[in-house]
């Protein structure tokens, strides 16, 4: 991969830092008047999702990371890996380990499209679309007539995820969930 100098650092650039692929979030030039210039950089470690802050001397270089995002359809889980298939016509299949899928496993639905991040050809991260529709498999019986205000109750979805839902929701209903907050949005329109 190419090397990138600090003046090429910009949001979205993928670089290697301490052996891990990272995505640059922010790069701010800091320079005391007559002194050394630094780049103060925020990076997201694409393996752990954690945000790092790191300062580089201007002109320092980092190796680019072979990282690409692909749209892929979720196929199935085999207990160890989660299997995805590229939707670019290649039908290429990729097995993502639990660490790569992380919290997104709460929102996995077969035949739904997800963004899979490949690092050197292997999945390291999977992100869900902003909204998914999932079926309720377990919740307390719904309260008739309670369609407006009132409290919430826990409901479990096919994926095993728990969301807080209004009291009128019943088992078997399909719900629209905001995957960014993990919150119930509405009943899915049939």
């Amino acid at each position, binding site marked *: 991969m190419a090397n990138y100098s600090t003046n090429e650092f910009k949001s979205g650039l993928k670089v290697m830092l301490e052996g891990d692929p990272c995505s640059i979030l922010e790069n701010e*030039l800091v320079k005391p008047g*007559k*002194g050394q210039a630094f780049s103060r950089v925020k990076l997201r470690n694409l393996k752990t999702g954690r945000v790092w802050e790191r300062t580089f001397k201007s002109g320092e270089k980092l190796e680019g990371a072979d990282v690409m995002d692909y749209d892929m359809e979720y196929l199935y889980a085999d207990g160890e890996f989660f299997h995805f298939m590229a939707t670019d016509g290649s039908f290429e299949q990729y097995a993502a380990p639990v660490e790569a899928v992380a919290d997104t496993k709460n929102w996995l639905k077969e035949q739904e499209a997800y963004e899979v991040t490949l690092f050197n050809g292997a999945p390291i991260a999977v992100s869900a679309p902003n909204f998914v529709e999932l079926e309720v498999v377990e919740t307390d019986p719904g309260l008739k007539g309670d369609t407006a205000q009132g409290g919430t109750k826990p409901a479990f979805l096919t994926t095993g995820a728990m969301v807080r839902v209004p009291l009128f929701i019943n088992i078997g209903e399909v719900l629209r969930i905001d995957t960014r907050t993990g919150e119930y949005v509405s009943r899915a329109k049939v």
Partner: protein
Amino acid sequence: MLWQPSADINTLRARADFNAYIRDFFRLRDVLEVETPLLSRAAVSDANLLPLAATCLSKACYLQTSPEYPMKRLLAAGSGDIYQICKVFRDEELGKRHNPEFSMLEYYRLHFDLQTLKDEVAQLVGDYLNIQRRLDLSYRQAFIKYARLDPFLATDDELQMRVQPFVGALQLNRDECLDLLISHVVEPNLPKDTLVFIGQYPASQAALAQTYENDSADMLAQRFELYVNGLELANGYQELTDVSEQKRRFAKEQAQCAQARCADEHFLQALAHGLPDCSGVALGLDRILMLKLQLKDISEVLSFDFARA
């Protein structure tokens, strides 16, 4: 849409008013407005500044990083007190507080010591920004107070340890460590809405300021910086007038420079002729305007920032 200005029209009006304010300030004090060439045959000596190279009449030349050398030539030629509002150019400086081309006010006062100059800068900037609170710290006091570290006594290993959380395994030299700590630790902790003058820099960071030895045998520079709300606004010197010392510093800077830069012979000749005893200061006008208008990004005070230039 990049054809449109990055500043709104009211901001440009405020900029014009600011320029008028500065010109009034100096007219009252009988300081002469001058213009000097933006394009110079010699490049700046400062290893931390990257000049933009150009070609004119088949000759290599550079856009100025500051008007310091030609203004000092005017002083040596007997101009008396002078000021200039001009554009300066510094390659690779781009960010929320930096644009590769920016506006500078630079001025020189004959027979002013650094304290007198600081007082005048406090008036110029303080009146404009309506900030009267002022704090004068030495470089050492600023580090002890805000970084709990003595910049003169700390060992190289201690400094390296303090910068490690920011830079990881990267090794920095002593001045680089101090530059990192002042920008990452001291600056963000300075009191708000206060004119903070930091002075008595280590001699290694003297640039074109005079140096002297204090009671505890530290070599210090007659130099100050002005910070307001974490923004560095001004850099002032009791100007070095000794030509042989100036030549030594040029040689030292050139040794640290990646690209070869020839010393500005016209400037050295002017010093040899005799620079009157004076103090001078350079102020970043765009940043002062940012503070006045409470804007966070320098592009918001520029008619067209570099992305639209």
